[in-house]
């Protein structure tokens, strides 16, 4: 209980609520259903280590239409996914894809921001690290306070929660 509030709901449900709040589309799907429906060709960049799917290209300034990547953790308190972005090809994919799809293993969903400290501490034991917290798609309200999406990042973020992994 880090923030003075109790995480009394189901953690996945809490994550989905907060993920929806920032405009993400959220799908809950079993591992088998996901594997059955997954088409690698739909995406220019693929990085899903849990299922051994890789298609790592170097994206240039033209960007790509769709990427699908796996997150290390997801934080229910804020609807955030945590990605070890040390690999530059992955970093470019999370920024330069118009649509970013993120596979979240339900076992990786934690309750609070502090629950990501262990991962952060581990990754920063090395002499260099790059980790990104992503909460929704890129946005701005800099012009007259009108919300607009897709400034220097994806216009859309879709979360795919694998319920039994």
């Amino acid at each position, binding site marked *: 209980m*880090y*923030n*003075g*509030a109790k995480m009394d709901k189901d953690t996945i449900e809490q994550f989905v609520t*907060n993920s929806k*709040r*920032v405009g993400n589309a959220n799908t809950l799907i079993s591992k088998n259903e996901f594997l059955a429906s997954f088409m690698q060709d739909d995406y220019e960049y693929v990085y899903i280590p849990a299922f051994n799917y890789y298609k790592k290209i*170097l994206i*240039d*300034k033209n*960007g790509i239409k769709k990427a699908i990547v796996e997150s290390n953790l997801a934080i229910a*308190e*804020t*609807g*955030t996914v945590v990605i070890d972005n*040390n*690999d*530059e*090809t992955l*970093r*470019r994919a*999370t*920024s*330069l894809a118009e649509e970013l799809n993120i596979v979240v293993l339900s076992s990786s969903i934690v309750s609070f*921001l*502090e629950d990501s*400290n262990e991962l*952060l*501490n581990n990754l*920063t*034991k*090395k*002499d*260099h*690290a*790059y*980790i*990104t*917290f*992503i*909460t*929704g*798609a*890129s*946005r*701005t*309200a*800099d*012009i*007259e*306070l*009108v919300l*607009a*999406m*897709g*400034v*220097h*990042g994806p216009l859309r973020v879709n979360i795919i929660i694998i319920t039994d992994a």
Partner: protein
Amino acid sequence: MKVNFFKRSDEFIKKIEEALEDKTLYNNLHTFSTNIRKTYKSVYEGLDFNLLRSKVNKSKEFSREERLELFEQFKQNVEKSGAKVYQAESSIDACKYITSICKNHNADYIVKSKSMTAEEIGLNKYLEANGLHPIETDLGEWILQLANERPSHMVAPAIHKNRKQVAELFRQHTKEDIDENDIEKMVKIARKYLREYFFKAKVGITGANIAVAQTGTIAIFTNEGNAELTTTIPPVHIVLLGYDKLVRDFKQAMNITRVLPKNAAGQIMATYVTWIKGQYPSIESKTGFKETHYVFLDNGRLSLFNNPVVQEAFKCIRCGSCANVCPVYGVVGGHVFGDVYTGPIGLVNTVLYGNNVRAKDLLKLCLGCKACSEICPAGIDIQKLISDLNIGLNEKYHTQLISDFTFSSILSKPNTFRSTMKVGSYLQTPLKLKGTDYIKFKNISITKNNTKILPAIAKKTFTELFKQYNYNKYNNAKKRVFFYPGCAIEYFYPYIGIALVKLLQKAEIAVDIPKKAVCCGLPSIHSGNSTSAKKAILENIQYMGDPENYDAFLVLCPTCGATIKEHFPLYLSANIPEFKKTDLMINKIKSLSMFLDENKIKLVPKNNLKITYHVPCHQNRSMHFSAEPLLKEIFKENFIPLVDADVCCGFGGSFSIDYPNISNAILNKKVENIIKTKADIVLTDCPGCIMQINGGIVERNLNIKVMHLSDFFEYNVDVE
């Protein structure tokens, strides 16, 4: 350098007037501040804001020595990967170092993500003077770069611009055909246009919101994702940060992470938090790894980290929420209310890092409402910092505004003050508006909107009336309270004080008052004169009753109450008997509503008048008690809640006659909200607020009355 002014610079006054006339600025700020206040409530729902912000406050609590230790730890951690750490003493030192790195890499183009520290050192101008091209990648900052303007807000830098102005800037720069109403399209154009620069640039420069010493990691918060691209494509990364960004570990970092986006933009979390350590992989780099430089900026910080008056300022997490709730900022904007740094903490930072000559004018813009201290997620009492620094500036620059001389020289001398007011009560007759008890005051140093309608000085003071009606002879009492009227009741609204006495006597409570009316000292403090404040306070405490003899100390002016609670102990800390008396007194200080509530004195309405309530700033933020729940209970469906009830009315004591134009602009919003309630009476428990709001009502000829709780209760409720 001693500079004697009897007025502010003409240039400064002109800037204020121009800002007040700017419709775009007014509309954008009004929309923003109204919405964000609502959002703050919803984004912290279910959370204990005071607990969260005290955690942040503690997370950044370090002495200078501890900060330097954190720095050493951070440095060692990042140097392991070959990153360079440079300690810049001054702005120019930092600019020189950064420029030399860029030149070494033949970096014609440099991309930057938003950094207030870079603004502080004037980095862009320095790079451009050296033939380099820094490109701002945050959309708001890029818009301002095209317009060659400074940010007017720390988080929403281009809030003063409208879509038409932005479209015109884009048209000129990109030569594309731009529809000013298609904001989405404009953003797409910016996306495409700036994308080119991410790939052209040889160097990326960022700031850092947090620096975690234990692991050598920085955190950068953005919504656009520009920090990701700025730190990914170019082969070189320069991080510019002040030593004040350092914390110990990720636990402390998460305390900040939890609150920063909520206060900055009303978001549960920022879209991107980028955590970076050392020299991470970089495809464009010849070595395969980024060349990273950390430039730690001193610029005066190190000498101030142990300064007891200002050290709290270094806990600032740069969220900008103080500006969002500041009523003065809300009508004049950041180009007036600040310098490089804007908003309330911007006033403080201008004294710490910036131009002190400019600062002395800026600090006078503070109303003293404490909305900033209330919202700060790092728990900084920002208003106190402004007040303390104002005293320091006044001692040096002797900035005597019209009111300063009056208040600070006379208020501390009760006999002089009383006779001055007596003379004044006769002399004011020609100034009175016909058939009224009001005078119209004009500040001629301001050209537009320079009048205030204020109450006339009463013929008899409260003390005189109290004696005249023999209230001091009431002995049939169950309880005894001490009532401190304060100057407003004593000289302007004595009948409000008399109404209190009558009400209490109905409840069989006797009232004692000071033998001599002495000011509480706040006008002197507010005008920056601590010497006359001390005089007034020392004199005042002598005439306060012995706390042992009273059940409560009542005030009808929460500003006086706040001054006694917050300032008396500080001013009297070396005057031990007086300090002890104050300490005992403070526990018993109550406003009328607090006293009624605690003593469970039940009031029953005598009629069906519709009531609304304005919450005085000091009642809410210093006395910590709003009468709203009590009034709701008494008046039930005849009580109508006021929108933005706890937003300042714009009085601020002397502020209202020093800056009548700003005071009236703030008052305007309050009166509009009052009209919307359709109430018969607007109640409040501060005579200053009554002066202010009544002035607005009289000017508009409205059929609403403003009354203090005490004089409203006299005729409109029964004591059960």
